[in-house]
């Protein structure tokens, strides 16, 4: 697969636009997943997917053949997400995920979590989390999602967002702290 991708990159760089399709095909779903996890919205994710591939196409000459294309495009996608969230925030429509997923009104817990904590898994908890998520700045939201959902290390987050490792770490800390503040009263009143 990497051979095919390396060939496709080389062909695109030599002027063969159609060769780019191999790269789109190989990574479209993964890019969509990242975009959806960051925005929680299919239309927004679709827009980000297109922007990501356009950006990748235009800056393909900066892709180093030694690195993995999947990592490279992932980073582009993450930055498109960040830009997108920033724009939304400026436009005053930064309300991503403040509505709970209608199909998932209660959060499912693994069975070994039975007990008093289960009571917390209510619609109310979900609303609180959603509201807390909107309190995060775009960078906090992206960094937190990368760490918490995508399982990326602090080091990878710092590389993806082009910030220092300490900054990445502090961004994740801030996000977690804000979320905890939102959840704290619920834990206290149990």
């Amino acid at each position, binding site marked *: *697969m*990497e*051979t*095919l*991708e*390396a*060939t496709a990159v*080389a*062909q*695109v*760089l*030599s*002027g*063969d*636009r*159609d*060769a*780019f*399709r*191999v790269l*789109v*095909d*190989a990574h*479209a*779903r993964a890019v*969509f*997943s990242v975009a*959806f*996890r960051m925005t*929680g919205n*299919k239309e927004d994710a679709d827009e980000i*997917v*297109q922007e990501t*591939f*356009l950006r990748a*196409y235009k800056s393909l*000459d900066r892709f180093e*053949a030694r690195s993995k294309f999947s990592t490279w495009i992932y980073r582009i996608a993450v930055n498109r997400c960040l830009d997108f969230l920033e724009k939304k925030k400026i436009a005053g429509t930064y309300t991503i*995920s403040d509505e709970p*997923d209608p199909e*998932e009104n209660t*959060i499912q*817990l693994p069975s070994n*979590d039975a007990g008093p*904590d289960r009571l917390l*898994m209510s619609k109310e908890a979900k609303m609180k*989390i959603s509201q807390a*998520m909107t309190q995060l700045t775009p960078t906090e939201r992206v960094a937190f*999602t990368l760490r*918490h*959902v995508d399982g990326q290390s*602090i080091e990878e987050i710092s590389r993806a967002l082009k910030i220092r490792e300490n900054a990445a*770490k502090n961004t*994740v*800390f801030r996000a*977690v702290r804000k*979320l*905890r503040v939102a*959840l704290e009263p619920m*834990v206290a009143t149990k």
Partner: protein
Amino acid sequence: MKHLSEEELILKHYGELKDEELSAHVAGCEECRAELMKLDAQLKQVRVPGVPELDEGYETQLWFKLRDQLPERNVSKWAVWGRNCAMAAAMAVLLVSAFLAGRQSRNVVNSPVVQNNQRKVDRLVALAVGNHLEKSQILLIELMSQGDNDKTDFSATQGQARDLLDANRLYRMSAAKSSDPTVQRTLDDLERVLAEIANSPSDLKSGDVERLQRMIEQQGLLFKVRVVGSRIREQNNPVPAKQQGTKL
């Protein structure tokens, strides 16, 4: 002893606490363990909605949306040179992996993951081969329409044939792993003709063009390339649901 700070607990939660002394402390300290469990429980509640299932034709739809937005590239000599290097590197990787695959083929496990990956690779090979056949077809048509007395510069055509020849070798080996013998045979035939074009003298003598044309004709190559190419294209661009029996 000093307990862990909230930040250290967060790192611990995500498996990024590098300090072994601190990790050892958590293991032995009930207070820190309780704090960590509370944090674990809280963070477990933070979930993002599951990613929705995408249509089977998602990639194709995306490609058609994207294609016209992609600007033409200005290709420099350096880019072409780089491309040739990349192609050579890709060939080397492929040869090594083919060798390793050959050695390991006895132990191949047919797990769903392996099969799924293979399907994906097959599809990418098909996309690349489809594009390759389209370009080869253009070259063959050009050559077939060339008169014997045309004084057109043959070196550009030869350059293209050399690029296509490199790519052809790569795809032929990739296609060898897939199950389609027609694609394999077409690439075999195409490779012989491309090699012939690439290695002909650039100042073609009278009769040379004719010889190449005869070779293409005798093998029915243009026809094969066209048929296999369009079949691959159809497979890669499935017609939306209405033709697959789904109601409108």
